[in-house]
């Protein structure tokens, strides 16, 4: 084994969506960073659906952007179909989604990495961590070279002991067309990590030339595509539509006829699949009463005929795949370009992580993405940027960044993972956030921009733009709170046209805006200053005014929970010695080793009584003595 002569601050293993954000964050924080991947041509590859965002995922992307990450900029530059979901619902649950030109997405990200200062890209397979006397020193590659570093971020995706299934055939692979990573997960086991098995799947890629789109509904993106990133001014690529098709009873019969050769139903697959993203055979078996299932036929790019039928993932044998896809109206003569497959891979129990994503087992080692049991590009990227930031902070001797549950979806996700672990691939949902009304896409910058700037991930120019916006919002909020209607004849006419009568003279604009039948655009007609307000300021003022009652309610809840959230539990607390806890609670706490009382309170089976006992135990002097 040769040892490379320079010592990195941060080495990132894997160049998927987590690895890219981790490497960029570390390098942008001026750390000597190396990114190593099995295949340099597959950087930021969209291995499954060619899209970014969606409910709660769009929120994650905007948070990554506010912190100074790359994902939002990358999708804005390569997106070919943008849509705001839940546009008719409230602002907290509105979410951005876009489809990417998959190849452009990967190529642009690679270019960004290549142009990044302090960042070296290497191709190779990491077969083991280099650990000396229990201390992490770097990584070792299959090619026989050892790279040294202060910290390592592991983002292995589906590659660790990856096993691809198509029908009863299976073969090792990290993803269709790529070699798996062998050896690393065995070493992690030896080091004391709990390694488990998960499964995911992807549909076939179909040839658009063989599809009759006239038999399908067409779905266009929004007329005015809204970018994800605060830094993007305009979406430049041409926009193209998707199509909606449906399965039918015949499709379901064909699928049922192939179940005996399904690796899922014959017990060959042991990994647990995602509950929210079942394969088509799973849907047919579990919902026999449903006579059709919907699929969006999504283009994979501007310059390819490959399309992606969403919701149609399967591990059925290839002959069944051909037959059932062809039973769908519009797909009668469809040609499969790449078959659908399921993949099993190793993940590491995220309970073995701190909130900083550093492992509790090996110091200076960070895990991000699917290795932590998550699924989704956005979830991976959200963890990636935090792991990268914290590895960089450690390498430079600083305290870690931990986002709270009331601060960001990223905070909710990481807290869920490290506190509760996960039984199936974890996906973000807005329902996971107890402070959902506070964590909106529209205020991601207000929540996180300052943090990004302090870390050095957001440039001064970008930050100036933000502080200007923040100031304008505050000024406008203040102005409408003390600007009153004079009930001039022109004002009364405008109100009457809106069907609003009996408004008292002296009513503030703020009060008026609180009414469900009034929006900011109406104010602009009543008062000349409002007319000048830019759109993004209008949006914030309107949301913050209309939802003030609810927002305040949630802020109050945040305040109440602060006591538990900030009560830290010593890392080496000996739960066995707290006799007052029941055996069951002691075991759970010893296994999870929560960092705070707040985390402990979220572990299932930990009763309020147990939390009281723990709080008392922490306060007693004996614990202070043998604490950290």
């Amino acid at each position, binding site marked *: 084994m040769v040892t490379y002569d320079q010592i990195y601050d941060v080495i990132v293993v894997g160049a998927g969506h987590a690895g890219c954000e981790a490497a960029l964050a570390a390098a942008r924080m001026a750390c000597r960073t190396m990114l190593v991947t099995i295949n340099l041509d597959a950087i930021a590859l969209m291995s499954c*659906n060619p899209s970014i965002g*969606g*409910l*709660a995922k769009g929120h994650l992307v905007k948070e990554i952007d506010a912190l100074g990450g790359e994902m939002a900029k990358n999708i804005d530059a390569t997106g070919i179909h943008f849509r705001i*979901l*839940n546009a008719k*619902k*409230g602002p*907290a*649950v509105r979410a951005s989604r876009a489809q990417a030109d998959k190849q452009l997405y990967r190529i642009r990200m690679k270019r960004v990495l290549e142009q990044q200062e302090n960042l070296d890209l290497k191709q190779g397979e990491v077969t083991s961590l280099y650990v000396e006397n229990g201390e992490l020193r770097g990584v070792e590659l299959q090619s026989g070279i050892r790279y040294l570093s202060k910290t390592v971020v592991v983002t292995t995706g589906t590659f660790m002991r990856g096993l691809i299934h198509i029908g009863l055939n299976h073969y090792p692979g990290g993803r269709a067309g790529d070699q798996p990573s062998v050896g690393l997960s065995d070493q992690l086991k030896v080091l004391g990590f709990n390694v488990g098995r998960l499964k995911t799947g992807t549909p076939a890629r179909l040839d658009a030339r063989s599809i009759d789109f006239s038999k399908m509904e067409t779905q266009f993106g929004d007329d005015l595509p809204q970018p994800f990133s605060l830094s993007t001014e305009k979406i430049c690529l041409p926009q193209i539509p998707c199509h909606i098709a449906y399965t039918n009873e015949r499709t379901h019969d064909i699928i049922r006829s192939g179940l005996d050769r399904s690796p899922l139903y014959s017990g060959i697959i042991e990994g647990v699949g*995602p*509950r*929210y*993203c*079942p394969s088509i055979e799973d*849907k047919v078996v*579990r*919902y026999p009463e*449903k006579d059709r*299932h*919907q*699929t*969006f036929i999504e283009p994979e790019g501007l310059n390819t005929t490959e399309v992606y039928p*969403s*919701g149609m993932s399967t591990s059925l044998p290839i002959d069944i795949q051909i037959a059932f896809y062809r039973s769908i109206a519009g797909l009668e003569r469809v040609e499969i370009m790449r078959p659908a497959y399921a993949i099993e891979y190793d993940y590491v129990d995220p309970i073995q992580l701190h909130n900083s994503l550093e492992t509790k087992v090996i110091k200076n080692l960070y895990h991000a993405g699917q290795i932590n049991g998550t699924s989704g590009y956005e979830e991976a990227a959200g963890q990636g940027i935090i792991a990268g930031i914290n590895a960089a902070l450690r390498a430079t001797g600083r305290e870690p960044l931990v986002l709270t549950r009331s601060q960001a979806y990223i905070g909710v996700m990481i807290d869920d993972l490290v506190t*509760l672990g996960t039984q199936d691939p974890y996906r973000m*949902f*807005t*329902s*996971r956030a*107890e402070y*959902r*009304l506070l964590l909106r896409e529209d205020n991601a910058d207000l929540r996180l921009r300052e943090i990004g700037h302090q870390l050095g991930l957001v440039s001064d120019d970008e930050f100036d733009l933000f502080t200007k916006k923040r100031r304008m919002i505050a000024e406008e909020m203040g102005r409408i709170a003390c600007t009153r209607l004079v009930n001039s004849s022109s004002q009364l006419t405008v109100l009457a046209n809106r069907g609003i009568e009996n408004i008292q003279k002296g009513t503030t604009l703020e009060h008026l805006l609180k009414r*469900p039948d009034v929006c900011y655009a109406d104010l602009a007609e009543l008062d000349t200053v409002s007319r000048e307000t830019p759109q993004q300021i209008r949006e914030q003022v309107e949301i913050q005014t209309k939802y003030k009652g*609810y927002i305040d*309610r*949630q802020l109050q809840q945040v305040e109440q929970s602060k006591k538990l959230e900030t009560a830290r539990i010593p890392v080496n607390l000996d739960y066995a010695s707290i*006799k*007052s*806890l*029941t055996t069951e*609670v002691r075991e759970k706490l010893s296994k999870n080793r929560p960092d705070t009382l707040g985390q402990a309170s*979220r572990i*299932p089976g930990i*009763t*309020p*009584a*147990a939390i*009281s*006992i723990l709080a*008392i*135990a922490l*306060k*007693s002097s004996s614990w202070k003595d043998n604490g950290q």
Partner: protein
Amino acid sequence: MYIRDTIAAVSTPPGNGGIGIIRVSGDNAAAVGNTIFKPVCDGGLVSHRFSFGTICDKATGEKIDEAMAVYMRAPHSYTREDVLELHCHGGWLVVERVLALVLSCGVRLADPGEFTRRAFLNGRIDLIQAEAVMDIIASRSEAALQLAQKQSEGALSVRIEGVRVCLLRALALVEAYIDFPDDDLGETDVAAILVSVGEAQNTITGLLSTFEEGRVMRDGVSVLIVGKPNAGKSSLLNRLLNENRAIVTHIPGTTRDIIEETVNFDGLSVRLLDTAGIRHTDDLVEQEGISRALEKIPQADLVLAVFDASSEFSQEDQLILDALAGRRTVAVLNKTDLQQRFLFPNVDRFAAIVRIIALSGDGIDLLKQTVCKQFLHSGTTDSRELVALSRARHRDALVSAEHCLRQFYSGLSDRNLELLALDLRGALQAVGAVTGQTATDEVLDLIFSSFCIGK
């Protein structure tokens, strides 16, 4: 803060009883036993065995009492600590002296409720159980005891869990439409959401209505006896008590001050207050008695208004009725064996009218039943089937859940789903606080088991 020192206290109620028990809990319990207790048989104290012997003051050599002692080694004891119980003769003086002797061994006098607090802190019982145990200790009657036992077994938890499940189901429906807009779920199924919320609401309302009943059984009720002089109030009191507690004469105005006694009506603990007869009088002492009687009226849970059936409805009777305006009142018509001259001006204002003969005891049982019925809706005091909310904490949780559901209903027509979800979450959180559960993952489980979701 929980300090593991050894504590002791008298565990039987104050006063003279058949036996008095001193309980000691903590690491030194056995040492205390070996110091002050001399068993008749050799071999010292054996865990969970009663032994007979004497309690002696070593310093003076004086024998204080003959006693039984039992030692229970941790964790098989009420507090999960080492526990010693000394059962001695119940004279207060003896009990006090034994306690003093125990404390002289370096043991601290326990704070009120400290044994139960230790049982709770040591994981022997959970919070709801701990509260119920405090109720068992404080319960004044059989019915309250049964309620406390029932609650400690978790009957209340079961009902509250039912509410939680309904709320979870409703929330899962709401959340599904929020998180899966592209999943072909169809229109929001408002009807199904309303069914679940309605079911939760009904259970909450039902539970809250039992709160009053629970409180009554735990704390008992106060029943005020009023009436004009010589209507037979004191005779009635004596009948209800089954003893000659009040002085009864034929002289109007005999009772000057308020007489208070506690009695058990078929399981319900009743505090009876006999008062001076209400009339216009120049006697200063009697006047004071009357004003005291009037002062008591607003505090009473129930008033027994006693009328003399043999005399006509008088100005004094009217005075009494005026003073009772708005109070729950049972009219007691006494002396129904004599010639009837009494006519009620307004029958409807009484919760019930009972005819009795206080002197002979006729109608007294019926009156007792009537009193019970006023508080226990089931009409019986058999609490075995009853799940009553007897703790303010439980009531508060349900009231706050109900408040959230009211907001939910009021926002149905014009509020967004995520705001409705906030109300449902608020209700769930309130209910979960009683049993200590959080909901997020259960909501997701429900969504995935109810809807075909996934792209």
